[in-house]
Structures are given as structure tokens and as C-alpha cells.
């Protein structure tokens, strides 16, 4: 292979700064989108388990719509299509007055996309809580909100922590798609270093290690969370 490696490029200004700001952008997008995904996914997951066929139909449509269209296309639809099909005044606001439109759109698109996956996990977690728990809560005179808030969800979230870890890891990887609508996150910045210096492999290597580091930290954090939240009854991590 005929390639002159020059790792010093990574330490040079402005390239180092580009990569660092790219990493910051990746973290910002991923963590913001993850908060949206957790809240929205939790709500949709619970609604899908309630005894109402209308709710079940609506949530299953929501889940399959967001799971069966590629994220890249969803991103384009949020960015190019939604402002056109909304009422004119809203569309104008989105196109002219929304601050950082690319960033906000990426966060929203990634958050909603991931919420469908989180909803499936939450629903399976709720279904995995032993039936006796729900019956006992009902017999103690709790209402639906109390049953979910105090009995089912605290156990369901512990049960689904390990699969949620994988969705949490995926969101960092998926945040790279934001580059297609012009957000300079980590992958875009390493691509930019490539086009300025022709030392793409050094930049790609740096980005690869940054992603590996983030993945390792997230895994470690989730393991700790599993251990911290485990119950003596054996729900959650051993």
C-alpha cells in the first residue's frame, strides 16, 4: 500500500479543533435525541399495552412507520417535506426563523426514529412483569396511572435496561447521518480533514477511536446503572 502516513496532521490546528468540535456535536445530537426517544418511546410503549384497541392500532402504526423507513429518508422528510406540507405560516417559520435548522431537525428525526425502537422495548418490558403484580396492584385499589407509575414501569425499565443499552449505543452511530443535511458532527469533520489535507486515514482512525471510546463509556455507564438499580428481588441485573 502506497500511502505516506502523517499522524502529526491530527495535532495541527485547525484540524484537531475540527475533530473535537465534531465529537461535541455528535454527543450533543445523540444525547438530546436519546432524551426525546426515552420520553416518547416510554409513552408510546405504555399506550400500546393499555386495554384499548384504538390505542393499540395507533401505536402499532406509529412503531411500524418509524421502523420500516430508512433513517436517512426520514431525515430528508423532516428537513425537506414537513415544512412544505404544514400550514403555510408554520412552514415559513421552520424555514426562516428556526435557529440551527439542520441541528434541530437531526435531533428531532433521530429522537423520533429511536423512540419507535424504545417503545417496543418498553412494551416488552411491561409485558414481562409477572401478571400477579398488576393484579395485586389492582386489588390494592390503585388506578391505572398508579399501577404503571409505581408498580409496572419501575420493574419494566429494569428488565429492558440491557436491550436499551444497545439502542443507546446505536443512537451515537446513527447521529453520523446528520452529515447528509450539513451538520458537522464527527464523521463529517473527519471527512473534511480528508478533503483539506488528503490525510483521510489518520482522520478516520481518530474518528473510529472516538466512536469506540464513546461506545465503551456508554456500555460501562449502563452496566453501572444496571447494578445500581437492581432490586433485591432479582429484577434487573444480577
Amino acid at each position, binding site marked *: *500500500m*502506497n*500511502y505516506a502516513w502523517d499522524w502529526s496532521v491530527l495535532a495541527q490546528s485547525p484540524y484537531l479543533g475540527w475533530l473535537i468540535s465534531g465529537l461535541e456535536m455528535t454527543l450533543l445530537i445523540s444525547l438530546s435525541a436519546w432524551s426525546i426517544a426515552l420520553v416518547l418511546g416510554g409513552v408510546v410503549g405504555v399506550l400500546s399495552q393499555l386495554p384499548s384497541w384504538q390505542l393499540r392500532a395507533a401505536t402499532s402504526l406509529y412503531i*411500524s*412507520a418509524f*421502523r*420500516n*423507513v*430508512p*433513517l*436517512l*429518508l*426520514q431525515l*430528508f*422528510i423532516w428537513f*425537506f*417535506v414537513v415544512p*412544505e*406540507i404544514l400550514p403555510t405560516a408554520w412552514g415559513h417559520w421552520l424555514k426562516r426563523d428556526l435557529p440551527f435548522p439542520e441541528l434541530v431537525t437531526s435531533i428531532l428525526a433521530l429522537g423520533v426514529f429511536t423512540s419507535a425502537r424504545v417503545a417496543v422495548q418498553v412494551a416488552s418490558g411491561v409485558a414481562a412483569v409477572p401478571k400477579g403484580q398488576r393484579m395485586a396492584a389492582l386489588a390494592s385499589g390503585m388506578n391505572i396511572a398508579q399501577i404503571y407509575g409505581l408498580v409496572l414501569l419501575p420493574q419494566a425499565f429494569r428488565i429492558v435496561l440491557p436491550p436499551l443499552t444497545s439502542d443507546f*449505543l446505536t443512537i*451515537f*452511530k*446513527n*447521529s*453520523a*447521518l446528520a*452529515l*447528509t443535511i450539513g451538520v458537522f458532527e464527527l*464523521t463529517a469533520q*473527519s*471527512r473534511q480533514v*480528508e478533503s483539506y489535507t488528503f490525510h*483521510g*486515514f489518520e482522520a*478516520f482512525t481518530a*474518528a*473510529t477511536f472516538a*466512536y*469506540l471510546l464513546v*461506545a*465503551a463509556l456508554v456500555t460501562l455507564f449502563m452496566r453501572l446503572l444496571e447494578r445500581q438499580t437492581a432490586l433485591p428481588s432479582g429484577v434487573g441485573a444480577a
Partner: protein
Amino acid sequence: MNLDFSVVARAIPFLAEGLALSFLLTAVAMAGGTAIGLVLAVIRLSTWRSAGLVAAAYVNGFRAIPLVLVIFWFYFLVPLALGHPVSALQSAIIAFVLFEAAYYSEIIRAGLASVRVGQWQAASASGLGYIQTLRLIILPQALRNMLPVMISQAVILFQDTSLVYVISLRDFMTSASIVANRDNRLVEIYLFAALVYFVICSTGAWSASVLSRKRSLA
């Protein structure tokens, strides 16, 4: 706003070519990924510790980085490694096969592990060798167990092929974007593309769930 869906009808032949490329990429990545994934899974389950560690590093490494970055890596790396220019399609195929191998190896590993230990012991007691046991006893059973997950992964893979957009390879997604921008009909084309993806992927997801329900009854 006025929608004009006739633009979609006129774009159908061009989009169909793109869709064919998406299917081709999916099929090649699935076949290649399964083959390499099987080797990786067998190595990881074997008693050969050092090779197992290398295979684990491969799998975990690929699973931790974004596919877009992998596509860029191979787009620049392959021509340099081979010493001559290659097409975007060739570099994309290599990237997808190696990337999917990591995911398929995890599915296959779980499938192999789902076959009870007694099967290995019985095969070995009947005088079968390691490869024979794997081929005749373990894999046929493991394959049945992992088929639904493999189909789900194929659905994800089919969606992921849209990422070749970043190297301007004309799959369905890229073709849709070309037509949308050329005719300035982004709303109609993107909504139509979403519908096509939705129908194909829901069908795949539905067949995976039917298969897994059949399995759980057995």
C-alpha cells in the same frame, strides 16, 4: 400547495433501476456477511483462545462505529490497498459484506448456542467429527432457530443500503434524491420513496414475526 404525483409515474423506470441495486447490495451483503459471520462465530465458540479474541475484536469494533464511517473508510482504502481505482459499487460491496459479517456472526453465535449441549455430545459419541457435527447436526437446528432474526437483520440491512447515498452510488434512495432535486418535486418523490420502503420492510418484518410465532408453537 399543489402536489403533482405524475412526476412519480415518469420517474418509475429510473427508480426501479435504483431499487434493483438496493436489492443487489442487500443480497450480496447478506450472503457474504453470513459466510464470514459463520466463520467468525465458529472461531469465537471454539477453544482457540487467541483467534477467538481477534474475532471478538473484529465483531465489537465494527459494531461500535457508524456504517457511514465504514463506507467512507473503504471508499478511500480499497483503491489504495489494491493499487488501482475501483468503482463506488465495489467498495460499497466490500464495506457492507465486512460490516454485516459482524452483525450476522452475533446472530449465528446465538443460534449455535441455542442448540443443546447434548446434541454435540451425542454426535461426538456417534463418531462424527467437529465439522460433520456442525454441518449435519448443529447448523440445521441452529438455522431454524435463527431464521426470524436473520430476516429482521435483512430488513435493517435493506434500509441501511440507503447510506450509499454518501458516496453517490445510485441505489433507490440516491435515485429518489436525484429525481426529487432534478424535477424540484421533493415532497412527492420522498413520500413515494418512503411508501415503497415501508411496504417492502413491513412485509419483511411481518414474515419474520410469522416465522418466529410458528417456531415458538413448535
